[in-house]
């Protein structure tokens, strides 16, 4: 039974750790499906985390925090769009630049405003997204197997967690069942054809990066005022890149994105759990292996050893209308 408890606790933290990845990877999905590479996911997440923590602290409302996070993240998206769509700049360079701006600016502003070395003050109560206990969680707790799973993995998460899982079918529906989604995927594959049909490629791509900014707003907010209670320096700590890896691992498809994020979240949870513990027969497994595993897996996938990851055809290429 003890092993089962461990499993339940690992699964619980898997869910908690994969939520920021999930929002961010879905953000990348919209952007990259429209042909705009987004290395700047990390920066957007970080900027949103800072904005939401500041707004939640100032107003005492988690929802206003979320709103601020989304607004700032979309602002970053628009700069990325201005550079890579309007000015046809290099999308990778623009993303790298925005990551630096975010990582530096959050600390500079945080230090100037609060003087705590870049941290923001703790928020509590209404300023955070607190865990929701689903109906019947306590009553079910004693039911074998299903009970603990329901009480600890499915129940007891905050509202953003449930929104993340709802965002997956929604993203699928938008991308594959609406006219907007069809056009969005089309500008990522063959912008010339979309242009011929009389649809503005630039405006279509702008809308895609705005959606990406919107979703990164959620992931940043989750980090700052749902998972923690304040903004901490560089708290995204490479999650944006792991999300990017998950997106590639899922071959740019919404439902596999969810499973890839859960897998990478699971690896993270196992790494936390394994710290200082030894496995029978093997001995102590270095934590670093689990930390590196998402990246190694993605490289193996990119090498074409597990299926082929084919990126949207027009990804990374600025669209130049013929004159």
């Amino acid at each position: 039974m003890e092993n089962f408890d461990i499993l339940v606790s690992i699964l619980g933290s898997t869910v908690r750790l994969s939520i920021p990845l999930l929002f961010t990877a879905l953000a990348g999905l919209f952007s990259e499906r429209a042909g705009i590479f987004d290395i700047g996911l990390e920066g957007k997440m970080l900027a949103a985390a800072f904005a939401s923590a500041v707004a939640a602290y100032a107003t005492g409302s988690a929802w206003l925090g979320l709103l601020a996070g989304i607004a700032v993240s979309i602002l970053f998206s628009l700069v990325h769009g201005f550079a890579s769509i309007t000015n046809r700049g290099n999308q990778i360079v623009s993303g790298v630049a925005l990551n630096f701006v975010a990582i530096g600016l959050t600390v500079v502003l945080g230090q100037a405003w609060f003087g705590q070395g870049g941290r923001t003050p703790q928020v509590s109560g209404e300023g955070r997204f607190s865990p929701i206990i689903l109906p019947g969680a306590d009553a079910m707790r004693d039911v074998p197997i299903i009970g603990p799973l329901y009480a600890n993995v499915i129940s007891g998460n905050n509202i953003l967690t449930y929104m993340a899982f709802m965002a997956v079918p929604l993203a699928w529906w938008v991308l594959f069942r609406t006219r907007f989604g069809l056009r969005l995927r089309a500008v990522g594959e063959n912008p010339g054809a979309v242009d011929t049909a009389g649809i503005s490629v630039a405006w279509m791509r702008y809308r895609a990066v705005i959606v990406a900014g919107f979703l990164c707003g959620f992931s940043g907010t989750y980090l700052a005022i749902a998972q923690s209670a304040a903004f901490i320096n560089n708290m995204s700590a490479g999650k944006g890149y792991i999300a990017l890896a998950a997106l590639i691992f899922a071959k740019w498809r919404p439902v596999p994105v969810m499973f890839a994020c859960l897998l990478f979240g699971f690896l993270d949870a196992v790494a936390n759990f394994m710290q200082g513990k030894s496995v029978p027969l093997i001995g102590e497994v270095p934590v670093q292996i689990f930390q590196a595993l998402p990246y190694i897996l993605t490289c193996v996938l990119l090498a074409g050893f597990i299926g082929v990851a084919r990126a949207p055809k027009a990804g990374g290429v600025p669209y130049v209308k013929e004159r």
Partner: protein
Amino acid sequence: MTTASVPLPNWISYGLIPLLNLLLAFFFSGLVVWWIGESPLEALKFLIQGSLGRGDAIGFTLFYTTSFIFTGLSVAVAFHAGLFNIGSEGQAYVGGLGAALAALALDHYVPWYVTMPFAITAAAIFGAAWAFIPAWLQAKRGSHIVITTIMFNFIGAALMVYLLVNVFIVPGKMAPETRTFLEGGQLPKLDWLMALFGLKLGPAPFNVSFLIALVMCYLVWLLIWRTKFGYEMRTLGISPSAAIYAGVPYARIVIIAMLISGGLAGMMALNAVNGAAARLQVEFVAGAGFVGIAVSLMGRSHPVGIILAALLFGILYQGGADLSFEMPTITRDMIVVIQGLVILFAGALEYMLRPAVVRIYQQFAKG
């Protein structure tokens, strides 16, 4: 007629426009300083004083410059072949392993100038090795080099932490680092060079690797503009389809260009590991690999431009450290903001001002 196809004289394309972009980046940095309630001009004064005001300040500035020349060259070589190597950071980190191994193996037995060639070679080989897999994946399997080099930065960081914590750590010590190299494994400081200008180096870690960096600048210039390989590389960078049609061996050029790029990144470790710290430490690269991106973009991937841009970032890094001491509301992270803005304006938005400049130029050309 659009402005994109109007030819501009070189001094505008390579002088004026980059300068305007740089000024824009500084203008926005100034806005940030002003926003947090400090005077941008006052901050600039502290920045200049802190980086160029005293002998040891100049020593620190040139120490940072050395690192950035290596990483800037690394990014630039890949850039000429049309490859965006974001992995200089990880390649420099792993290169540190090579530099440290050479020093640890030899420092008991020989003086520094015997160790140096081994350290240079080992650092370059380890850095190049870390670039090899992404290069091979790009050349043979078509996976995107940007993504794989990012992944390899993280894998490299995990590997190095593992090695430092479990293999190289000095028994009984807490800090995950190797033992301190003896003098035979270190690179000596350049106090004599400073003394020529009547300056005292003080505690600044400005060392021989600066001279190695300058030699590398010359070699990179030779490679890119004076060899057949460099020509093929540039052709590939400008138009892959034309290069392949002309018979340039794509896979070979990509792999060799990335190996050189990784090797140059790895040599950055000479400065930080053998020159400054005299030991291999966790996170010793400290973002120099990423600064290389900014340096290469600003320097237009030309060695002379790279030296100037590296000097600028050296001033920013050293001056920024001093600035945060003088003005506690401005943290050192302000440099990261400036770095981001420079990459944004000099890199991603490099063509933003061009149409306006072309229009003004045409006015003048007519009148």
